């Protein structure tokens, strides 16, 4: 049996991912988000788990350092990495949207052309605005995106929304939906072929639980 390395992201997808993988017997002792170990292995089933920052999962998989991984569609698109996308896992549902302060809403999307937009997703945002024929100034932030318009760093934000609570708390209003995202099972192109049987079995097993 070939050894398989699985990259899992820290944060809210971690628990959901390990729970699902456990159902099909893919787990390891000590597989916790706060584990101090960098690689958590299950010798018996020949599985290695690595826990990385969210944005790094596609990188590990693209280079084949991890054979497979679980990560949000938004992160895959933003990374632009060439990874195989095998399964929509359905959880981690959220959507990417543009929001502005309620009191500064402009009538049409085009009215925001050439303004500043704060985002963790500058690539997806740019692709979206370019498709609308708009040029924007992208300000890459790594967290607390909604702070941007409050302190005058930007006119708008492009960010992930699950429930909308954060938006409401900060007097922001969604003005356009950009894309939906869920967690995906991804694979490296070479691993997918050289370890096809194990990976394909995993896909078939997981499908039963979705």
């Amino acid at each position, binding site marked *: 049996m070939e050894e398989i390395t699985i990259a899992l992201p820290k944060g809210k997808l971690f628990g959901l991912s390990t729970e699902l993988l456990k159902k099909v017997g893919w787990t390891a002792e000590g597989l916790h988000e706060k584990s101090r170990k960098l690689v958590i292995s299950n010798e018996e089933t020949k599985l290695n788990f690595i826990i990385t920052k969210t944005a790094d999962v596609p990188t590990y998989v*693209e*280079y*084949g*350092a991890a054979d497979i991984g679980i990560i949000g569609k938004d992160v895959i698109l933003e990374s*632009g990495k*060439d990874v*195989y*996308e*095998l*399964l*929509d896992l359905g959880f981690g549902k959220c959507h990417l949207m543009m929001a502005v302060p309620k009191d500064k809403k402009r009538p049409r999307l085009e009215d925001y052309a050439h303004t500043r937009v704060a985002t963790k997703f500058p690539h997806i945002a740019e692709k979206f605005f370019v498709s609308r024929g708009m040029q924007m100034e992208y300000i890459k932030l790594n967290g607390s995106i909604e702070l941007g318009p409050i302190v005058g760093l930007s006119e708008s934000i492009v960010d992930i929304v699950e429930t909308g609570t954060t938006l409401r708390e900060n007097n922001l209003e969604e003005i356009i939906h950009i894309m939906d995202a869920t967690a*995906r099972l991804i*694979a*490296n*192109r*070479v*691993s*997918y*072929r*050289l370890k*096809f049987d194990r990976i*394909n079995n995993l896909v078939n097993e997981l499908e039963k639980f979705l």
Partner: protein
Amino acid sequence: MNILLETPHGTRDFLPQEAAAKRVIENRLAKLFSEFGYEEVVTPTMEFLETLRISGGVESDLFKMFDQNNRTLALHHEMTTPIARLAVSRLKDSPLPLKLSYNTSVFRFRKNQMGRQCEFYQAGVELLGVSNAFADAEIIALAAQSLKVSGLKDFTICLGQVEFANGLMEENNLSPNVQAEIKNAIEHHNIVELQKIVDALNLDKVAADSLKQIPKLHGGLEILETARNLAKNKKSLAAIDNLAEIYKLAEIYGVADKIIFDLGIIRDFEYYTGMVFEAYAPNVGYSLAGGGRYDNMLKDFGMACPATGFALGIERILQACEMQNISNAVQTRDIYISYDEKIFDAAIKKACELRNEGKVVEISLTPQTEDDAKKSQIEKNYTELIYLK
């Protein structure tokens, strides 16, 4: 850092040991190609942009410049197109099949290329003028043999046939746009997307399932039977027959144990028209080599002529060798000659003599004491010291 000491983005130096390892592999490949009857050609590093565009060279990937007449030139990004141009223009009266090989650097401007730089090295062959399984089998055998002579023990060649997917799509009368979307999803194994596209087509369940199955058709000979049962059209079935025939010949070549079928491999689908393949090694996340049949490209240059071939990524092979702990650097340093003050003439004669015998000999450029000579021999890693006094 001093800009005079930098190299441009995406370029690298090969230090002596790295250059030696690269040279060893390139020499073995050159020898192998010529044993198979392939003759080496060298084409210009730059071509007119229009020429490279014929094979679908993406403009933003090319390094471009202008000549004195303001025509746009580009550095070649692969060698199939320049060789096609060469074959149609300079070798059009040569008897077919033409068997040509190359070993050169190619240039692609991409910020993010795994396992290679913007300038990277490729060796490969093109076989022009024959469209049968015999030619394709020769190409695959030669590719497998190339990886073997490079020193790799553990590698796999995944073999597909683009006409299988094409036939299935035509069978369902899909529009060219939808076909392109589906092929794109198959090529990137975006199975989530593939399912979405197919589900939106409202095909009957059997047809829809067949299309969704394509990226999963991976395995040994049994997979050809599975594939055969999915298709009703002539084109797809002919593609499967073609693969079976290639495989039979590969068995005779003794490389069949390296082959796995994978109908999800379609590579650059604008360009390939028949069998396609990629070679992989464990723990290297990208392909080491790739190729296939491209029967339509030469037509775009004005001469309809079937063709097949492959390219090997030298840096990636070097990396795979390293992963498999295979050292190809056989840099022998045999003899260090040093001498006392007055007998430099004897030293030179001795060096010439030994070099004629094929030894690697370095001669000290200044007289040394015997102790210093010993020190130099060890520092420079020579096996033997000859000290003349």
